C-alpha cells in the first residue's frame, strides 16, 4: 500500500515541478523576439499538450505518459529553434532552460526503478540536453542551459532514488514499531482481562461504593469502615499484580494460579447476602478444588442467581445444594418465592444471558432455570471439574 503512495508522491512532485517548468518556459518564449513569431503558436500548442501529458503523469503510473511528455517537450525544444541555423535571439537558450531542466527533467523523479525506466531516463536526458545545447549562441555544445538541463535530470534521478530507498528504510523501522505495538496491545489486553476477571472483587467493591454513594446511611459506621478497609486492601493487591479472592475470614487468597478451594469462598458469598437480608443455607460439599477460571465463573453465576432471588422472589431464604460427581460440580439454587413463567421474562431482565449463561459456557458449563408462578424457582448450574 505504501508502495502506491510513494509512487503517487513522486508522480505528483514530478507533475508539479514539470508544470512549473513548462509555464515558465511558455512565459519566457512568449516575450517578443525570443522565438520566431510564425513558430510561436505551434510551440505554445506543443507546450500545452506537454502540460496535459504531465497532468496524466501525476495520475497514472503508466510509463507511456512519461514518454509522451518527453516526446512533446523535445518537439517543443526543436520547434522553438526554427528556422535552423539563423542567428537566434540571445535569450532563446536561457528561455529553453526551464523547459529542459524542469518541464522535461521533472519526470526523472519517476524513472528511478527498472531497466526500462532507466532507458527512458537516459533517452530523455540525452535528447533534451542536446536540443537545449543546439540553441546555444556559440554553436558549440557546451552552454549553461544545456549543463543545467543535464544536472537537473541527474538531480531528479537522485530524488527518485532517495525517496524510494528512504521509504524502504522507514518501512523497516515502522515494522519494528508495529511489532512492539502488537506485543503492547496483547499485554494491555491481558492486564484488562485480569482486572475484569476479578469480578468477585469488583462485585464487593461496587456494593461498598453503592453504600457510600448513599453516604453510608443505614449501615453502622464501624461495619462500613471495616468493609472499606477490606475492599481497599483487595484493590491494592490487584494493582500490585495478584488476583485476590475475597474470603470470609478477612485474609485473602493470593494464589493467582491453578486451583482454589471453593468452600471458603462460598462462605464469603453467604456473608454478603446475609448482610443484604437474604439468608442462604448451604447443603452438601464444603471443599472442592476448581481451576480458578471455572471457580470464578461458577461463583459469578451463583451470586447472580442469588441476587435474582433476593430481588424478585420476595423471600428471605434460599437454599443452595452443592453436589459433585466424578467430572462435574453442580449447584441447585431453590427458593419458595413468587416464581415466574420462564417464557414471560426476558433474558435481559434476569441478567441471565450475558452474566450467567455466557460466562458458564466459556468454561464449558451450563445453566437451567425452572419456575412456575407461585411455586418458587430452581436454578441448576453445572461446571466441569
Amino acid at each position: 500500500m505504501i508502495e502506491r503512495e510513494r509512487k503517487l508522491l513522486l508522480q505528483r512532485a514530478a507533475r508539479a515541478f514539470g508544470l512549473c517548468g513548462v509555464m515558465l518556459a511558455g512565459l519566457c518564449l512568449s516575450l517578443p523576439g525570443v522565438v520566431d513569431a510564425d513558430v510561436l503558436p505551434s510551440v505554445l500548442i506543443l507546450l500545452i499538450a506537454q502540460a496535459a501529458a504531465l497532468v496524466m503523469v501525476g495520475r497514472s503510473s503508466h510509463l507511456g505518459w512519461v514518454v509522451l511528455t518527453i516526446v512533446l517537450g523535445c518537439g517543443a525544444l526543436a520547434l522553438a529553434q526554427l528556422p535552423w541555423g539563423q542567428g537566434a535571439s540571445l535569450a532563446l537558450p536561457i528561455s529553453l532552460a526551464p523547459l529542459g531542466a524542469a518541464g522535461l527533467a521533472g519526470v526523472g523523479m519517476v524513472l528511478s526503478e527498472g531497466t526500462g525506466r532507466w532507458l527512458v531516463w537516459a533517452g530523455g536526458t540525452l535528447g533534451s540536453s542536446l536540443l537545449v545545447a543546439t540553441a546555444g549562441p556559440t554553436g558549440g555544445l557546451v552552454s549553461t542551459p544545456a549543463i543545467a538541463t543535464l544536472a537537473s535530470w541527474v538531480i531528479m534521478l537522485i530524488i527518485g532514488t532517495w525517496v524510494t530507498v528512504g521509504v524502504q528504510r522507514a518501512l523497516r523501522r515502522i515494522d519494528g514499531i508495529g511489532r512492539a505495538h502488537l506485543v503492547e496491545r496483547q499485554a494491555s489486553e491481558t492486564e484488562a482481562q485480569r482486572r475484569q476477571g476479578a469480578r468477585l472483587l469488583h462485585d464487593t467493591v461496587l456494593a461498598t461504593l453503592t453504600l457510600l454513594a448513599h453516604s453510608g446511611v443505614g449501615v453502622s459506621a464501624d461495619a462500613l469502615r471495616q468493609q472499606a478497609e477490606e475492599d481497599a486492601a483487595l484493590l491494592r493487591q490487584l494493582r500490585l499484580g495478584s488476583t485476590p479472592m475475597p474470603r470470609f475470614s478477612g485474609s485473602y487468597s493470593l494464589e493467582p494460579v491453578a486451583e482454589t478451594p471453593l468452600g471458603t469462598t462460598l462462605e464469603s458469598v453467604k456473608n454478603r447476602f446475609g448482610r443484604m437480608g437474604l439468608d442462604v443455607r448451604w447443603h452438601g460439599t464444603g471443599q472442592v478444588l476448581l481451576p480458578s477460571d471455572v471457580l470464578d465463573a461458577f461463583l459469578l453465576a451463583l451470586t447472580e442467581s442469588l441476587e435474582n432471588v433476593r430481588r424478585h422472589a420476595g423471600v428471605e431464604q434460599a437454599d443452595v445444594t452443592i453436589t459433585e460427581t466424578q467430572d462435574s460440580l453442580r449447584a441447585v439454587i431453590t427458593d419458595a418465592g413468587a416464581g415466574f413463567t420462564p417464557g414471560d421474562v426476558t433474558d435481559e431482565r434476569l441478567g441471565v444471558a450475558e452474566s450467567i449463561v455466557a460466562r458458564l459456557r466459556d468454561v464449558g458449563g451450563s445453566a437451567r432455570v425452572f419456575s412456575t408462578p407461585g411455586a418458587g424457582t430452581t436454578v441448576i448450574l453445572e461446571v466441569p471439574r
Partner: protein
Amino acid sequence: MSSSPPPEESTLGGSIRPAGARSSTRRGSPTSTHASALGSGFLGIGVAIIAALQSMLGIALFMSRAGDYPTLLPAVGAWLLLMVTFLGLTITISASGERLPDWLYFFFLAALAAVVWLDFVAIAPLDDVGRYATASISAGFVLLIIVTLRAQWEVLLATGALAIAFVIAILATTPLTPATLPAQIIVVALAVGPGLTGVLLVSGFERMLKRELDRVLVQSTVTAPRLAVGMLASEELARLDQDAEELLDAVATGRAALPLPADLSARASSLATELRLHLIEGRRETWLRHAVTESEHLGRRVAVSDPAALAGLLDSTQRDALLAALWLLASDPAASAPQRIIDVELGPLASPASEPAGSGDVTATIIPLVITVVGIKRNRVDPGVWEALDRVGRYSDSTANGRLCVDVDCAVENPVDATRPS
C-alpha cells in the same frame, strides 16, 4: 498496614523519566514521534548531495566567467563563506544527531544572507543579475539542508526572503528588456524552486510514513480476540480501580467522616457507575471498533454499527481484507474531493432456519455486512478495494443517490457463540 500511602505510582513515574532528561527522551504516542526517527533524516543526506552537486556546477560557472568581474574579491568571499557554512552545518547536524537549535539556525541564516549579499555586491557592476548570479543561487540549495529539521513555514519564509532579495537586486541593477528578462525570471524561479520542491516532497514523505505507521499500528487489531478491551480501556479501568481504592482507603482510615459528605458520596456514585460500565461494556467492543477509534485515518471518516459484535467472528484473513478495503476507501485521491463518509453495518444475522439443514458437517454462518460510502463515484473506487472485499466474502454493489452501497456476505465457519442461546 492498610493506611500506608500508595507511593508506587510516583516512583514508577520517576523511574521512567529521569529528572534531568527533558524533551530528548520524551515521546508521545508512536504517531507523534518526530519524523526524523522515521527516515526523513536520511532524506537530509540526499538533499546535501544535491546541494553539493549544484554548488560544484555553480563554482564551475563562476570560474568560467571570472574574467568578466571587475573585482573578484566579494564573489570569492561569497563562495568561501558558502562552502564553510555548508560543511560546518553538515558536520554539526550529523554530529549532533539531526537537530538544529535555534541559535545555530539563525547563525546559519545570517551566514547565507551574507553570501547572497556578497554575491550581489560582486555582480552589481555587471548589470545582469540573472546571468551572473552564482553563489546566491547555490545559497538557495544549501538552505534546503534544513528542510527536514525545521518547520515548513520557516523554510518557506527563508525561501521567500531569498526571492525578494533577488527581485530587489534585479530591479536595482538590471535593465529589463525582452533579451534580459528570461534570465531574470529564471533566476528568481531558481531561488524559489528548491525550497518549494523540498517542502513539498518532505511533507509528502512524512505524511505518507505517518499514515503507514497508523496503518501498521491498527493492523495489530486483526489478531485481537473476538471481544477485546482495547488499549485505552485497560488504562481507564486501572485508573478507576485506583480512584476507588483511594476513596475506600479514606473511609477506612477515617479521613472521610461517616456519614459521608455530599461531594464524596457523589464521587462514590459516579465511580460505581463508571466502573460498572467499564466492566460490562469494555468486553463488548470488537477489533473493528478499536481499529476505527485508534486510527487517525479511519476515525475521521468511518462509522461502525455492530450491535451484536459480529465483526469479532471474522477470521484474521477477513479482518485484514476488510481493514484494507476500508483503508483504501477512506483515503482521498485529492484533497479537494467532497467529504467522504463511510458507514459499516454488520448484522443482523439471518435466522438459522433459512440455512439448508444437513448440508455438511461444517456449519457456515453468513454475516451480512453493508458498507455505505457517501461522496465517491463507483468508477473512482480503487480496484484494490474490490480485491480486498473479495477476500472478505461474496459482494454485490449498487449506487443510488450519490452513495455507493456494497453488500458483503461474510461466511464464518462454525461460530460456536455466534447465535444467542435460545
